[in-house]
Every structure is written in structure tokens, then in C-alpha cells.
């Protein structure tokens, strides 16, 4: 059913396919940029991925004016402010982010600070309140297939002081272009491939079931789900296959566009809280929580989940499933996928596998109910109910 009112926004040009990365210098030129600052992390440098990009940029005569590789896995507001100061000091004119969710979200934070002409990203917190600032050319190259951050209007950054993950929501936080090149994910280990793929699936499922869902976000989310259903297991089993890698990269981007226009829900609210309080990796937590939250939401979201079944198991199997069984079948499909990934590469299926203490749950619950993602969850969730979900997932 069409909502009475919705908005859709996706300003990101997507360069997707074989050797897409080779076109990045030309894209930079089109954006009138000549002194890019490259943001990446030490692991990618070690893996040689940043060298692949640097070689291309050197060959095209546009090497970065400055490279920052000191981005931690769990980036923070102070890292963002520090990078923005360095950008100004080195007189850069554009941003280039090569990495996973943390690098991209950090870069989006830096982009916000620079375009908003401020020194402190905290001054920009809010929702739809940041006017379009100065244009800073900004290109993103994801090296995982999961966050979809390359196409979303949100930056999630850790506030160390409050031990929470903060969301900065603005349509102007998204980059100008995203480059999806299978070379960038070929060496992603099976365990990380599985976890990030489940994060993408979680984005797609939450996008399809939350209060802000709309026909355009549904179109992207269901396309993403179909790709995940077909390519996640093969990508984990055979990581060197460029087709599976590219399909997963595209699935993540599609899910990113979807949830950027419809939001996520309780899985992410609780996941952000677990990340903020217990420092658990986002994608792992998503994989563990997704089926539990789907069961919790079932009474309110049954018709939405039922509609997802064909995209998860194919039309024939879905048609063979009785109508009132389809929502539960969709949840079982997610559980089976997680279980299979657990067998293949050790993806955690319970919170206890992740060294989290049950004693932290009350604090996690209190943090989760103040997360913006909870407001559009199909069912209302109290702190006590968050604790209940956490115990079920433990």
C-alpha cells in the first residue's frame, strides 16, 4: 500500500563493475578536484588495496595531496574533528574514502564539518537541520559489501564521552560518487564477507518493514534481498569469484539507498547500543539480532515479512508456502542463512559468542530506546522489551 506521503533522495552517482576504480581520477576531474585527501585504514594499506588506488591516481597524474590512515575500527567524533583540521592545514580540495563502514562514516563526518564550515561536528547534530553547505567533492570506494554507507544520508559516529553511537542525518552527507569495483572486496575474508552481507540483508529487511517504507525504498530493498539470497553463500565459499563479489557490493549499495529513504528499525537501534556500550562489531551484531527482532516485530509486521519471502527463496517456493505461513518462513530463511554461515565461517549466532556480559544489558537497553532508529520500528519497544530480546539472543 502506498503511504500517504513519502520522500526519496539519492544524489550519488554509482560507478559499478569491472575496473570501475580506473575511472575515479576522471570523476575527480569532473568534480573540479585536484588535491584530494585520501582516508583509509592501516589494514587496507597492508592488504595493498590503497596501493591499487594510489597507482591508478599516480598514473592519471592526480595523486592525493594528503593520506590519512589512522582511522580506528570504531571511529569517533574527535577523529573526525582531527581529520578536518588536517584537511585545512594541507589545503586539500576534495575527499576520497577507501574502506569499510568506519572509514566511510568518518569521511562523511569530515565532509559535514568542512562543508558546514565548523570545527566541531557536534554542532551539526540533528535531523534535516543542516543546510547545504560548501560543496566539497567527495568520492567513496567501499571495501566491504554491507554498510551501504556509500549511498546513505546518515553518518554514524561514536561519541566517546557518552559511550553512544550518534547519528548525523542529512541528505547532504552523501558523497558525489561511489565506486563499486569487485577488486576491492576480492580479499575480504569469508567471516567478514558473511557478517557484512548479513548487515546488508538487515538493512533491506528493516527498510521494507519500518514506518517510513515507501515504493521506491521497497524496490531497492527487494532487489538487494534477491542478490543477497543468491550470492552471499557463494561469495563466502568462493571469495575469488568477481561476479559474486560485485553482486554483493551492489546488494549492499541497493540496501543502503533503501534504508537511507526509509530508515532502519530495532535491530539497528539495539545494535548501535551494543556497539556503543560493549564495542561489538556492527555487522556481527546485526546477524545475531535480526531473526530475534523479526520475531518480536512479527505481530505488527507480519504482512511486510510475508511479502519478502519470494525475494529470499524465489517465487516458486514462496508460492508453495501457505499465505499465513510466509512471514514465519521468511524468518526461518534468515535463521537458516545465519546457521549456514556459522557452519561455513564461524559467524556468531548468539551474543554469548561475542564476549558480551549480560550485566551490560540494562545499560544497552537504556541506550537503545534513545536511538533514532527505534522511532520507525513497526512495533513500539520499551527498555524491558529490549532486555528481553537481548536475553533471547544471548
Amino acid at each position, binding site marked *: 500500500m502506498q503511504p500517504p*506521503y513519502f520522500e526519496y533522495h539519492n544524489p550519488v552517482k554509482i560507478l559499478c563493475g569491472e575496473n570501475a576504480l580506473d575511472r575515479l581520477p576522471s570523476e575527480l576531474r569532473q568534480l573540479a578536484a585536484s588535491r584530494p585527501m585520501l582516508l583509509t585504514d592501516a589494514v587496507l594499506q597492508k592488504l595493498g588495496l590503497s596501493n591499487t588506488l594510489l597507482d591508478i591516481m599516480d598514473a592519471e597524474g592526480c595523486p592525493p595531496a594528503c593520506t590519512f590512515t589512522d582511522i580506528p575500527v570504531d571511529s569517533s567524533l574527535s577523529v573526525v574533528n582531527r581529520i578536518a583540521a588536517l584537511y585545512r592545514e594541507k589545503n586539500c580540495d576534495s575527499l576520497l574514502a577507501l574502506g569499510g563502514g568506519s572509514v566511510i562514516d568518518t569521511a562523511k563526518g569530515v565532509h559535514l564539518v568542512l562543508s558546514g564550515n565548523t570545527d566541531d561536528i557536534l554542532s551539526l*547534530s*540533528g*535531523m*534535516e*537541520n543542516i543546510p547545504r553547505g560548501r560543496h566539497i567533492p567527495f568520492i567513496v570506494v567501499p571495501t566491504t559489501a554491507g554498510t551501504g554507507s556509500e549511498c546513505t544520508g546518515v553518518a554514524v559516529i561514536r561519541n566517546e564521552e557518552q559511550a*553512544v553511537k*550518534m547519528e548525523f542525518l542529512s541528505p547532504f552527507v552523501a558523497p558525489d560518487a561511489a565506486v563499486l569495483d569487485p577488486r576491492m572486496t576480492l580479499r575480504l575474508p569469508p567471516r567478514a564477507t558473511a557478517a557484512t552481507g548479513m548487515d546488508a540483508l538487515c538493512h533491506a529487511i528493516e527498510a521494507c518493514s519500518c*514506518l517510513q517504507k515507501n515504493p521506491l525504498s521497497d524496490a531497492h530493498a527487494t532487489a538487494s534481498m534477491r542478490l543477497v539470497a543468491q550470492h552471499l553463500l557463494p561469495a563466502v565459499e568462493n571469495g575469488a569469484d568477481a561476479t559474486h563479489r560485485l553482486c554483493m557490493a551492489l546488494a549492499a549499495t541497493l540496501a543502503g539507498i533503501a534504508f537511507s529513504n526509509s530508515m532502519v528499525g530495532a535491530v539497528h537501534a539495539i545494535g548501535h547500543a551494543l556497539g556503543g556500550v560493549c564495542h561489538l562489531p556492527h555487522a556481527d551484531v546485526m546477524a545475531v539480532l535480526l531473526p530475534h527482532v523479526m520475531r518480536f516485530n512479527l505481530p505488527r509486521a507480519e504482512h511486510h515479512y510475508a511479502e519478502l519471502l519470494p525475494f529470499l527463496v524465489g517465487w516458486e517456493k514462496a508460492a508453495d508456502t501457505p499465505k499465513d505461513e510466509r512471514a514465519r518462513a521468511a524468518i526461518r530463511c534468515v535463521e537458516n542463512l545465519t546457521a549456514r554461515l556459522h557452519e561455513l565461517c564461524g559467524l556468531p549466532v548468539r551474543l554469548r559468542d561475542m564476549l558480551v556480559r549480560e550485566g551490560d544489558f540494562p545499560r544497552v537497553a537504556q541506550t537503545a530506546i534513545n536511538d533514532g532508529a527505534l522511532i520507525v520500528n513497526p512495533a513500539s519497544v520499551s527498555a524491558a522489551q529490549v532486555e528481553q530480546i537481548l536475553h533471547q539472543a544471548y
Partner: protein
Amino acid sequence: MRRTLQKIYLSAVLRLVHAAICELQSLDKAAEGELLGLPVGLRYAICTGHGAPALFVEWDGAGLRRLREEPAQKCCRVRIKTMADAFILFTGRMSLAHLYARHGLVVAGEIADVMRLARLVNLAECYLFPAFITRRILPELPRLQASPLRLYARVFFGFLTNRY
């Protein structure tokens, strides 16, 4: 004329919601818990559209004090984009969550503070509006810990004695 009437209604209902939340502090444990969980000194500005009524309050650790003017700083500002949306929201025809889902709000400040406010407004609405209205807009209704009539009586006594 319609806009003027809507302005009068919104002005009254904002005062009513504020007074209800203040009274719920001693009538409802959930409301009390929410209020006591607010950071001391937190200010809210709730604006219902351009040139339309607004409510400015500050949590001083003991009560939600009404401010005469819009706070200049350290404030969570929630602006409803159009007065028509504000009217729909405060006549119990749409929840804050649905308005958020329709991109009806602009927020300056921390999202966490908006979530705290949303829970308080939802709770106040459950007392102020009959259940057949709130059941339509909220996925779940909280168990009311006092009679709505008692709340109304206390709110009107508060208005009579110039407390609000």
C-alpha cells in the same frame, strides 16, 4: 480564519501537554522515570510552523519549567515543518513517529533527546485523548497509572492557580 483558529488551538494544546507532563510526574511512574532521566538543564523548543505557536521548556532537575522565550543555546529544537502537520499531530490523528516517518520534523540537537520527548508526548496523549483515538495512532498503549479525569482536574487547577 482557519489558520487563526488552528493557532489558537495549538497554543492551548501546547500549554495543556506541558501541564499534563508536569502533573504526570507525580501521577505516573513511567513519566516520572522519563523526566528524572533527562539531563538537568536540557531545554526543548517545540515549534509548530512558521509564525505559529511554540513551547519552550527546561528540565531543572525537579520540574519541567516553561520558558518565556526561545532559548538561545543548549537546546533541543524540534520544528514541525508545517502548521497543518502540527494540527494533525495535536488533534490525535497522527503520532509523532508517523510524523517523523513523513519527514515532518526538523531537529537541531541530539536525536536521543527527541526520543525522550517523543515518549513523554505519547504518554501525555494517552491521558489527554480517549483510548479509541490513541489506539489508532500508537502501536501499543501504556497502562495508565492514574485516571485521566484526575489528571484533567489537576491540570485545570494548575491553570486556575496560574501554575502553568
